[in-house]
């Protein structure tokens, strides 16, 4: 007997360069339902969705996907589209200079025999689609870039509807929306469901997941843990429980260090995030020998906080004090002069000069130490880089290799060595263990602890709760309503941290 699933993914495996991202995941989708998909960062949600959209292929490629009782393999994004599977990514793919009509019809314009655009026909069809989405107030000729984010979202959905899909995957669709806009989006989703369309709703906002979804599938560590049914009642805490699991390995060992004097202090700092939200009144201080962890969900403004301290992002109000003296940081040059170093989340984009030798990447901001009268002394450079690299158990031969030839873990070491050579007093780490393997993770964690032991003040920005809990002395949680904390080491556990992140209240 065939069950009532329109789509089944059975025992999906996916390996990236030796690391198993998916370990036999099963996911089912019914016609006309909204299925929630939750899990921590790195749990495997996006990989699974990429497979569904034909962007990635699973290890044992065929037969594991059943669509409308037919076994098949999805070979390309185009194929997925033909099958009616469409993704609405978090970063909307719209051409902001073009009108709503042009965006909705992009690539599938209606034309006459002479390839002349049938403009009126397209406008009429667009109006129909907008009507269906309860947003006939949107002018089909308006420029998309000038519309509010929520309306852009609806345009992106409209574009999918024109393509005639029956499975819509929405990745964090409410991340940039207000509460009211979210409500409207939910109405649209229910409407889509009522026409037999299925929606996969991926979100970190668990209360929204509970509200909109008929069933919720929970992933952890590359596995599908369970699927909860709304009719049995779903509580947010259940979701967190399954997302977290029970066992926490000592992936992030702590190096104990005595706290020294205060060197840096933020008072009521406010700035804008990339999404344009204002992060208000951030206050905390950094001490020698102390690791301060700031955590929070993706997109809440952690990276932006780092950028603000580095002079890469404008500070709207508030002040910063270094050694009790007020300082202004309006450029990375000033930050560097004050002894603030930065280990970027984006190693390839701003951490490394990829096609330059590792050694040169290590010394790039300390050329004064290895030069005389502005002439570089290669022996001195080699010796300095070599000594620090050896301390970090990095092989000598890596020094002459281009940065791009190194593994993620060694690349991260290169960036950290740069700050060690520079002798920065404050080091800001943004997601320091992102994209590196487990062994390298614990090495980097140990290294951060050792650096704090050298009287450095560490600011750790991380959305990886275990990392923050593992190596921070003081923890702050950045949420949409502000900075929660300080929570001294040991006063938070995983679940209470998650509860704060997801806004169910502070602590236990």
């Amino acid at each position: 007997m065939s069950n009532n699933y329109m789509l089944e993914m059975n025992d999906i495996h996916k390996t990236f360069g030796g690391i198993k991202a998916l370990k036999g995941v099963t996911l089912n989708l019914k016609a006309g339902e909204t299925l929630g998909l939750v899990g921590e960062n790195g749990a495997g949600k996006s990989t699974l969705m990429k497979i569904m959209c034909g962007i990635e292929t699973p290890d044992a490629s065929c037969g594991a996907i059943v669509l409308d009782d037919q076994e098949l393999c999805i070979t390309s994004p185009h194929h997925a589209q033909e099958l009616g599977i469409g993704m609405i990514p978090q970063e909307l793919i719209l051409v902001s200079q073009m009108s709503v009509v042009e965006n909705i019809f992009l690539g599938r314009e209606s034309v006459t025999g002479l390839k002349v655009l049938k403009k009126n026909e397209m406008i009429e069809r667009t109006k129909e689609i907008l009507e269906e989405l309860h947003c006939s107030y949107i002018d089909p000729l308006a420029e998309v870039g000038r519309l509010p984010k929520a309306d852009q979202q609806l345009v992106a959905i409209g574009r999918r509807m024109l393509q005639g899909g029956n499975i819509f995957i929405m990745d964090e669709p409410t991340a940039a929306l207000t509460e009211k806009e979210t409500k409207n989006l939910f109405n649209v989703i229910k409407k889509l469901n009522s026409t037999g369309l299925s929606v996969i709703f991926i979100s970190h906002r668990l209360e929204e997941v509970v509200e909109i979804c008929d069933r919720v599938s929970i992933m952890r560590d590359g596995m599908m843990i369970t699927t909860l049914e709304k009719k049995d009642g779903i509580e947010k805490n259940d979701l967190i429980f399954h997302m977290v699991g029970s066992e926490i390995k000592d992936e992030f060992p702590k190096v104990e260090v005595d706290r020294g004097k205060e060197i840096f202090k933020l008072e009521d700092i406010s700035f804008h995030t990339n999404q344009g939200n204002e992060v208000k009144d951030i206050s905390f201080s950094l001490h020698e020998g102390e690791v301060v962890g700031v955590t929070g969900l993706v997109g809440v403004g952690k990276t932006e906080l780092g950028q603000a301290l580095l002079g890469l992002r404008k500070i709207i109000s508030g002040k910063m004090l270094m050694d009790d003296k007020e300082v202004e940081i309006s450029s990375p040059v000033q930050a560097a002069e004050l002894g603030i170093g930065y280990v970027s989340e984006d190693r390839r984009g701003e951490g490394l000069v990829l096609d330059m030798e590792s050694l040169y990447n290590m010394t790039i901001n300390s050329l004064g130490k290895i030069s005389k009268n502005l002439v570089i002394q290669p022996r001195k450079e080699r010796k300095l880089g070599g000594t620090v690299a050896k301390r970090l158990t990095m092989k000598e031969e890596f020094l002459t290799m281009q940065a791009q030839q190194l593994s993620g873990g060694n690349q991260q070491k290169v960036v950290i060595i740069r700050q060690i050579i520079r002798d920065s007093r404050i080091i800001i780490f943004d997601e320091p263990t992102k994209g590196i393997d487990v062994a390298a993770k614990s090495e980097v964690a140990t290294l951060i602890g050792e650096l704090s032991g050298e009287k450095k003040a560490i600011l750790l920005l991380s959305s990886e709760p275990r990392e923050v809990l593992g190596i921070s002395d003081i923890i702050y949680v950045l949420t949409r309503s502000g900075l929660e904390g300080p929570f001294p080491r040991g006063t938070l556990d995983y679940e209470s941290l998650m509860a704060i992140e997801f806004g169910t209240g502070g602590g236990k």
Partner: protein
Amino acid sequence: MTTRARNPFRGNYIGIISAIIVIAVFLSFASPYFLQATNFINIGNQIAINLIIAVGMTLVITTGGIDLSVGATVALTGVIVAQFLYLAGGSFFGVAGALIIGVGVGVGIGAINGFIINRLNVPPFIATLGTMTAFRGLALIFSDGRVLYGLPEEFQSVFAGFIGGVVPKPVIAAIVVSIIGIFLLNKTVLGRYAKSIGGNEQCVRVCGINIEWIKMIIYMIGGAFASISGLALTSMMNAAEPIAGNFYELDAIAVVVMGGTNLLGGKSTVVGTILGALLLGFVRNGLNIMKVPPNFHQLVVGIIILGAVIAGSRRER
């Protein structure tokens, strides 16, 4: 994974060196003029004028930038220096002043380019396209659109003539400039910064390095080299023309890229630029002495440039 040994003459020059040798051997058999001393002096002077500019262009391109205003710099330098010499005459101070002012013109233009690119955030291509036109205009204004003849003999003797009786002075100047270029790029802090900026500007910015200042200095050096070329040209011709140096920027860019420097920045080689300048010089000379009709010259040169660049980019892969 490969480990590549550090080599200051990075890259593989076998292709371009063979091309130069093939052309030279061909010309020495095909034309009785090629191996004559006067012809070599001719080639040497031509290559020198181009190469001096191209070394500066190599530095600019290393940072991921470009400088289209170098041809106009050649002209403006000549015109200003000529006007100065009319006033100051051929005394020691007149000539020394002319040289200092001449180089100052290029440094100043470099500073203006740097300011527009860094402070006003105009992409280098557009910024220097603008200054190229504007400074060419200034050259026309300061010369009243005429050729300025009759400069003092003492100034002429700065670059005209030979050293050791055989080597033309502009060639010596080009050699000195090339050595300075190699040294700056490979041995100094400035060169390291330039390469890093060309490789990943955002990384260098985040490291807290004053990128604007470094790029400013690089454009000033590029401008100074263009001025030296302008001084040499003016001195050799004993005249300053407001339309001198037309399209020199394109020749310079062409030889830089032919030599294997990455137009996007980061990877560059002055040695390659020298070889590129030699190749282009021989080809130009060959077309002349082989009596190829002038109307064909541009076409042939264009094809040679494209061929060299395509061969180079294939080798990279």
